[in-house]
């Protein structure tokens, strides 16, 4: 089955051969889309990939957020999602004294964290993994969270090119916030321009080649 745009209420597939996945519902024999997006089928599982809308937190997502508040047992983090996120003290990989919590993460600090779980009441975060923790320096760029898969590319191909061409370290949060760290501020701004280019052209096919061409042109102009 090829990818196609579906609208709510549209029948994607019928028969017992398919299973309803994310963004779909089974009504009798038919699998019906319940949201607007791209319908895709893999291993008999039919699902709808969102094209628009707000960020939907999912377990295992790496996100970038801002510390909003410190409570007695953790930190409240703003991750640009309607449900609040919380980083409990127990999910910090070292001992933290309750008096010195602000020294670990203070209000206003940006952190890279992973989503431990989503329940009705909120999102739980963890930083018990490599590459997670406080952001010390660099630049934060914001893109629409639906464009994140395009910024990363197939198996990280897109972000790989950007990293190679600019020599910056880039961490992409699934919620649309991107952390860029380079040696010079010019490099970071260059990454920003590149990411904005990707986000703008996100719907064109063969985007990776297009971006490579864009880099060649930019570099050619400089020298």
């Amino acid at each position, binding site marked *: 089955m090829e990818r196609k*745009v579906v*609208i*709510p*209420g*549209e029948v994607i597939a019928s028969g017992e051969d398919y299973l309803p996945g994310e*963004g779909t519902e089974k009504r009798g024999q038919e699998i*019906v889309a*319940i*949201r*607007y*997006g*791209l319908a895709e089928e893999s291993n008999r599982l039919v699902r709808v990939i*969102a*094209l*628009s*809308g*707000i960020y939907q937190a999912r377990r295992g997502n790496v996100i970038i957020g801002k510390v909003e508040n410190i409570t007695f047992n953790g930190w409240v983090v703003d991750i640009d999602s*309607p*449900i609040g996120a919380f980083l409990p003290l127990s999910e910090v990989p070292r001992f933290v004294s309750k008096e010195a919590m602000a020294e670990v993460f203070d209000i206003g600090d940006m952190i890279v964290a992973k989503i431990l779980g989503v329940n*009705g009441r909120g999102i739980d975060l963890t930083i018990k993994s490599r590459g997670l923790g406080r952001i010390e320096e660099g630049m934060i760029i914001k893109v629409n969270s639906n464009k994140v898969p395009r910024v990363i590319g197939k198996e990280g191909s897109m972000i790989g090119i950007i990293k190679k061409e600019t020599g910056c370290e880039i961490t992409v949060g699934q919620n649309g916030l991107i952390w860029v760290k380079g040696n010079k501020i010019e490099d970071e701004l260059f990454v920003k321009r590149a990411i904005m280019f990707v986000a703008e052209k996100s*719907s*064109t*096919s063969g985007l990776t080649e297009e971006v490579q061409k864009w880099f060649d042109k930019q570099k050619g102009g400089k020298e």
Partner: protein
Amino acid sequence: MTTKTFKRPDGRKPEEIRPMSAKVGVVPNADGSAMFSFGDTVAIAAVYGPRKMHPQHSQNPEKGTLRCNYNMFSFSVAERARPGPNRRSTEISKITEWALEPIVMIKKYPNMVVDVHIGILQANASTRCAGINAAALALAHAGIPMKEMVSSVSIGKLDKNLVVDVVKEEEDWEEGEGATDIPITLTNSGKITHIQLDGKITSEELKQVLKLAKKVNKEIYEVQKKALKESVKF
């Protein structure tokens, strides 16, 4: 039903809708947006959310809330309309909410609200129908889970003749039995989510009205479908 000598003021056939157009993504700041027009009647809708409901005492921990706001711009009619909410716009906001509530699946968004703002840029009757059509498009564009799409149309009875998509001139029809305006919102599978009636009609005629609405709603649905599908380029 329709008498042979009957002619509509703008020369349309009784079952002919004004030329329609639809576009999604017209408000870049919103999470979802759309424009829908029936001839001179142009409506835009912007959807924000789901986001946290404020103030906290309005939150519903059982399910999400849908909040609609219908507004006619002061320049939308020939004689300047006084801006701000009034009796009519408050009623239409509520009606729109009821028309859309059965299709949006916001059970999974407790304590949250989905805001739908509808603005009428130009009015020549059927504004609530254009508003609902635009709102349905904007909700879909915002990625809100929905059971199916809805389309809305107004059916009129001018004297004894049934017509589709009433214009201002027809709303003020005074010959014979006068004008009856019946805005109807139907889901794509033909279920009614909203029906209003302003005037007089027999139950037999109302059955014909419903049949007519079902028939023409297919055309509106196709326009909405096309707008959503064509907003994605490959």
